[in-house]
């Protein structure tokens, strides 16, 4: 499979300024922009890494650059949400879709383990939903509270969840604003830090699980984000990452994006 990708990247480099992918050098793997003439045998596809952030940065730095990217399903979903919010220029990006393996899909609880622009590999069966979601969903309030308090108490406020997130691109972050989160307090006071992020993720989270993978305190963040994603679907019929044309409903009027459930009075 990897040879196929290297071949396709080599072909695409004839017309593109560069292709964003992972590269192995000195025994470690990191994001890299492959250009014509680079040694493509160094191109890697594992481990999974949110490469769309790199594309976004390059698109902003070089306003005419045309890039390709070796993208997994979650990368493509991240692209969809970022392009809607003007973080990536769709006209200057070629997606070289790569299907995840069945094991990867399972490990990520991934519901959609292959991009729509699939070039290499075949789409495996979707992973199972995160069992923690169902478990905590059925817990009574005091138990949920006890669980999350224990989880949030582990937070060292490293901002790793935000920094790795392809959808966290705001220049001013609410989690760094002293009005909403007191500076210098560890762990952040409940209920602020994590809830702010969870709400901001509602119409953005593409379930790439990078925040949870990167969290040094092993807080099961994606349980909350999965629940928010579910609510966005139930309340507004919006699935982040699914459709480039669907606008995020939270900033639209009810006429443009109605609520599915009764709004009350």
């Amino acid at each position: 499979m990897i040879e196929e990708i290297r071949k396709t990247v080599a072909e695409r480099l004839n017309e593109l300024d560069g292709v964003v992918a992972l590269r192995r050098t000195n025994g470690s793997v990191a994001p890299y922009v492959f250009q014509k003439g680079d040694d493509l045998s160094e191109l890697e596809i594992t481990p999974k890494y949110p490469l769309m952030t790199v594309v976004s940065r390059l698109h902003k730095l070089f306003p005419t650059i045309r890039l390709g990217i070796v993208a997994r399903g979650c990368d493509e979903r991240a692209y969809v949400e970022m392009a809607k919010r003007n973080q990536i220029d769709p006209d200057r990006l070629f997606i070289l879709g790569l299907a995840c393996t069945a094991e990867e899909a399972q490990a990520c609880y991934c519901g959609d383990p292959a991009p729509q622009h699939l070039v290499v590999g075949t789409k495996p069966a979707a992973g199972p939903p995160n069992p923690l979601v169902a478990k905590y969903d059925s817990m009574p309030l005091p138990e949920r509270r006890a669980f999350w308090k224990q989880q949030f108490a582990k937070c060292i406020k490293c901002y790793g969840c935000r920094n790795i997130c392809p959808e966290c691109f705001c220049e001013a972050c609410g989690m760094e604003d002293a009005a909403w989160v007191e500076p210098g307090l560890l762990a952040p006071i409940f209920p602020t830090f994590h809830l702010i992020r969870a709400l901001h993720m509602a119409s953005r989270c593409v379930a790439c699980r990078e925040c949870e993978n990167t969290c040094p305190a092993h807080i099961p963040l994606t349980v909350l984000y999965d629940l928010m994603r579910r609510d966005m679907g139930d309340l507004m019929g919006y699935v982040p990452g699914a459709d480039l044309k669907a606008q995020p409903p939270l900033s639209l009027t009810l006429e443009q994006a109605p609520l599915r459930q009764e709004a009350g009075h």
Partner: protein
Amino acid sequence: MGVEFEPRIVAFMCNWCTYAGADNAGVARLESPSNILPIRVMCSGRISPEMVLRAFRAGADGVLVMGCHLGDCHYSAGNHRTVKRMPLLQNLLGYVGVNPERLERVWVSASEAPRFVEVTKAFTDKIRQLGPLAQEVTE
């Protein structure tokens, strides 16, 4: 609890409808609960979830988010944001184990002074039943 618990309630009110409604309730000498701490904002669409969370963190036992009825918004669609945002926040509070009923979104127009009193009374009673939030959050 031996001592009677009196809840602290932060009520965000939009300038054009609910705040005027509350004002009219005062002018009409209708009695509304003194537990309510009003915060006037220009539009209920201005009330970000962060503001609600901060109110809870600052010691509110309940938060009311109040604005114009749908269709009556001074800015035509400001409250459309409120109506979409608040259910998400309510659900999220529930997911982390805070009773979602501690947050309520209500529409009260400028001419609904009696309704303002009714709503604030009912909400205060409900929060009084639920007890202090601090008790929930710190076991």
